[in-house]
């Protein structure tokens, strides 16, 4: 067994390259999904019915689609409609679009639970539109929804593992290659799990620091 881990250590370059790609993919996707989700939550909170309905269908539709299936559709399905993605852009698009739906719903529900008065004060003091959202509505939302947003970011990292099926060289893909090349499945996959776990600890630390900021303001 020790020997098996030694073999994995020998392939650490491959594993770390996979980790690098996972980090790159997850960070880009999480940031984009948070920004787009925030914008989409403003549509979900509108008064007029039609835009809300369209956004609602988008959000609920995606939340009920398994991520793996969604990635298959983008990479294998869309080319039959004449839309071609390489595996990087298919991967990024899949992660961003899919998690935008979740982020929007997370921020919408946190928003609905916010007291109305400070937002009204923002309007009375001359804020409107996106300025009102960015400076008055969003900051308290991010503070209260911090733990749930962090949870969703962990989900982004884990979903990125599915992208091995469209041959993206991320961490799970690297672990797979190592095990098939050297027949060390246990050691290779455990090494990958530990690295995923390390990434989640980083997110947890971020959530904790947002939590401390929220606590100071509560």
């Amino acid at each position, binding site marked *: 067994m020790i020997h098996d881990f030694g073999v994995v250590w020998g392939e650490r370059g491959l594993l770390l390259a996979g980790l690098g790609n996972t980090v790159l993919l997850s960070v880009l996707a999480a940031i984009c999904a948070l920004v787009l989700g925030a914008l989409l939550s403003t549509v979900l909170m509108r008064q007029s019915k039609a835009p809300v309905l369209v956004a609602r269908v988008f959000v609920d539709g995606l939340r009920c689609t398994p991520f793996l299936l969604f990635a298959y559709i983008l990479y294998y399905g869309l080319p039959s409609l004449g839309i071609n993605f390489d595996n990087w852009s298919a991967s990024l698009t899949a992660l961003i679009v899919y998690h935008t739906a979740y982020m929007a719903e997370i921020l919408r529900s946190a928003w609905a639970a916010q007291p109305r*008065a*400070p937002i*009204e004060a923002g309007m009375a*003091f*001359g*804020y409107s*539109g996106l300025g009102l959202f960015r400076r*008055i509505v969003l900051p308290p939302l991010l503070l209260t929804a911090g733990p749930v947003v962090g949870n969703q970011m962990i989900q982004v990292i884990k979903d990125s593992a599915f992208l091995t099926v469209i041959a993206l060289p991320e961490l799970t893909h690297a672990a797979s290659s190592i095990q098939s090349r050297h027949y060390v499945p246990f050691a290779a996959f455990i090494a990958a799990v530990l690295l995923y776990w390390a990434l989640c600890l980083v997110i947890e630390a971020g959530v904790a620091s947002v939590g401390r900021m929220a606590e100071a*303001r509560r």
Partner: protein
Amino acid sequence: MKRLDLPAVAGAPTLQLAGISKSFGSLKVLENISFDVARGETVCLLGPSGSGKSTLLRCINWLERPDGGRVLLDGLPVGISTGGVVMSDRELALMRTRIGMVFQHFALWPHLTVLQNVMEAPLHVQKRPKAEVVEEAQAMLRRVGLLEKQDVFPARLSGGQKQRVGIARALAMKPSLLLFDEPTSALDPELVGEVLAVMRDLARDGMTMVVVTHEMAFAREVASRVIFMDRGVVVESGTPEAFFNSPNTERAQQFLLRYVAAPAAPTP
């Protein structure tokens, strides 16, 4: 967004309300309300709960959209432009920067410190230079006696302190008119005095204010004029002396009996 510095129309009173009406469904809450507020006046809106005072106040800056009537601030239209078109959110927002508002439940921004609360709109809505805004915000906090709390978050303040920050925040906009929506109703009795004291100073310094309140002693002492409302109409208006000493209408007499003459309930 650029600061709107349309000059006030010369000679116009600070606020003109003409024929303001408002219904919630089939319930008429305001019916044809008209009055002016001159520069430097403190007008107190009095009346029983549900008489429409707060709704009227919120119609002045269009937080509540009136069904009919016109609002003019410094002679300039609020909500509906001179051409009769309803203003865009952005146009309305620009007019609102000229009207300060103090809320019953304070409505401070919880993610910002006291100083940041006061600086927020002057800096990001009016886009005034930062050095000037900091200096003025601190001057406003000194005026309400809370400069030493400038780096504290609102959650750490008492109700009275929160409301004084609310007043400093409104003053920092350099508004033509200050609106107070029951500013002491959410406060513990022992904290009411510190807020009223600040408001009394503002009135003395010539700030133009419209105050919805149940503090009769305050209205009697500070108001230039009181307006008594009941069931969505102005029943009576006049100087505080005239209103409190010899009200003309029966409704006002009954109201005063209940709120002023009634022996104070023993406090536990």
